[in-house]
């Protein structure tokens, strides 16, 4: 592990927007106390981030759900989940179609052309197929249109989901699979009146997770996690960071929410490496 005596905890994250810099500078400032001091390193993709965690270059990785699952699989489970966003604890995928389609439920999706986001996006590509399959849809015979943009960033940029929506609006696909956050950010369709409607929504699952190896001492991680969980939406300086990072509160890990993703990785033969 990277932890040297007296050295700050080192957290790794992926730079998927320019705002990752102010977010992590803000977080670093917030943690600037003797027991919790930290610094951060930014990576260009989640593959490198997980490699760095395993190699001991960083102490904690801010992982997507797929990066968390890959860390578990690559270390035979020698990981510790530390904390997640409240929005990560109840994530879901929403299937949307052009307004007026009249479609409802997985049965209506199975017979349509489905637009998916980046192949390494759990919420916009991997889990949509898993939950459709679990609902009885023969996904192997579906007509899929994939938008593999920003590969390596696990769908963080949202670009592939917007591409999928555009495909539906242009008539090149019938249904798009998008993350709940994109659906929320377009007001569940209300901010695009008369254009989109929801066809189906998966059960909730867990998304991003602060992940450490099980070699990180509890005495090091515990004060850091306690300080993280104490960030307060009502404090303006905290709220700025929370809002940019897309949460209202940091919460304890919800590990049950990864069961579907581990099943999906096995079903779809998603490589546990890269």
């Amino acid at each position, binding site marked *: 592990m990277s932890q040297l005596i007296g050295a700050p905890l080192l957290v790794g994250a992926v730079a998927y927007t320019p705002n990752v810099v102010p977010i992590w500078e803000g977080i670093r400032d917030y943690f600037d106390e003797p027991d919790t001091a930290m610094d951060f390193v930014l990576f260009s993709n989640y593959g490198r981030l997980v490699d760095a965690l395993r190699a001991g270059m960083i102490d904690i990785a801010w992982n997507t759900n797929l990066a968390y699952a890959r860390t578990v699989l690559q270390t035979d489970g020698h990981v510790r989940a530390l904390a997640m966003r409240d929005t990560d604890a109840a994530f879901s995928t929403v299937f949307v179609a052009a307004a007026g389609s009249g479609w409802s439920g997985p049965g209506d999706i199975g017979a349509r052309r489905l637009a998916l986001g980046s192949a390494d996006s759990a919420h916009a590509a991997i889990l949509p197929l898993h939950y459709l399959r679990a609902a009885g849809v023969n996904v192997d015979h579906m007509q899929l249109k994939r938008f593999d943009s920003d590969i390596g960033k696990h769908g963080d940029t949202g670009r592939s989901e917007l591409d999928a929506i555009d495909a539906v609006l242009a008539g090149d696909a019938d249904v798009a699979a998008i993350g709940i956050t994109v659906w929320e*950010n377009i007001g569940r369709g209300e901010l695009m009146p008369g254009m989109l409607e929801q066809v189906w929504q998966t059960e909730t699952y867990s998304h991003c997770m602060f992940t450490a190896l099980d070699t990180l001492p509890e005495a090091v991680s515990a004060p850091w996690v306690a300080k993280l969980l104490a960030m307060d939406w009502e404090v303006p300086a905290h709220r700025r960071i929370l809002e940019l990072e897309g949460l209202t509160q940091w919460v304890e890990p919800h590990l049950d929410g990864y069961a579907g993703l581990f099943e999906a990785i096995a079903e779809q033969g998603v490589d546990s490496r890269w």
Partner: protein
Amino acid sequence: MVVMALMRTVEQLAEGDTAEFPVASASELDLVRRWCAKTGNTVVSTMMVEQDAGYVTVGRGRPRNPATMIPADRMPGARLWLYTNFHCNLACDYCCVASSPRADPRLLGIETIEALVAEAAAWGVRELYLTGGEPFLLPDIDAIVRSCVDRLPTTLLTNGMLFRGQGLRKLQAMPRAGFALQISVDSPTAEVHDSHRGVGSWKRALAGIRVALDEGFTVRVAATISAHDDPALDELHALFDGLGIPRADQVIRPIALQGVADEGFAFSRESLIPEVTVTADGIYWHPVAALDEDALVSRQILPLAPSLDRVSDLFAEQWSSMTAASTLFACA
């Protein structure tokens, strides 16, 4: 489709950066506003080129609340500066308002000052700062000070060199409570100070500080530092400490690139947190820019309240659209 454009573009902007989007109708503009409210972004400005169509500029992130970043006593409108006059017994080579013995005095006059101060107090101004020029060249400066202190805490900026004869009597007639003198001393020894302000001026300023302290006044000191000089800050603070002036009353600031200064801190109205400033020529954004036409708020001095309102509104707009931090420039 404006929301798709917003989703693609704004989410990838750095915090504080902006992007412009065409809007074709009032309802589309409303969608932009609702999207910004929902996603934590900001409508910075709109420019409608037809009745319902035009452009909207959106900024990434929410404008930070200035009240969380600026002390209450430095928020716009908390301070009011009055240039009582522009003539001076000195001709400092960095003077931001080009004062000198030959400068046109451009007096505000006691009646105007009384009207301004009454209005300022009613508006919510918390502190007054009288400056020039050298205010002690005015025969009625003691009466001006009394009329100000009757309403609000007041600080008078002076070079401290005229506390003799009539000047001393005027000083002695000024109130001690609710009043402070701010005297300029630029260096711990005479050489640097005198090179900018005139031979003998350091010694007389120090003498003036001692007179004022002996008379029971609160004295603050202000040093204006050139990038070309050794600031000798430790020695300067030691000098002020030795005079018994608390560190909180020791102001150190750079030269501002204004007036006759040929070097110094360059700024624009947009980069300065305003401190409303009244001169005989008009109302300005900040005392360090009281000759700067770009910093002119109004030619009309009275009534004052509309200009105080206007500066507050302009600052709120500037703050919400800023892409770089505004700066406090400490004149006092």
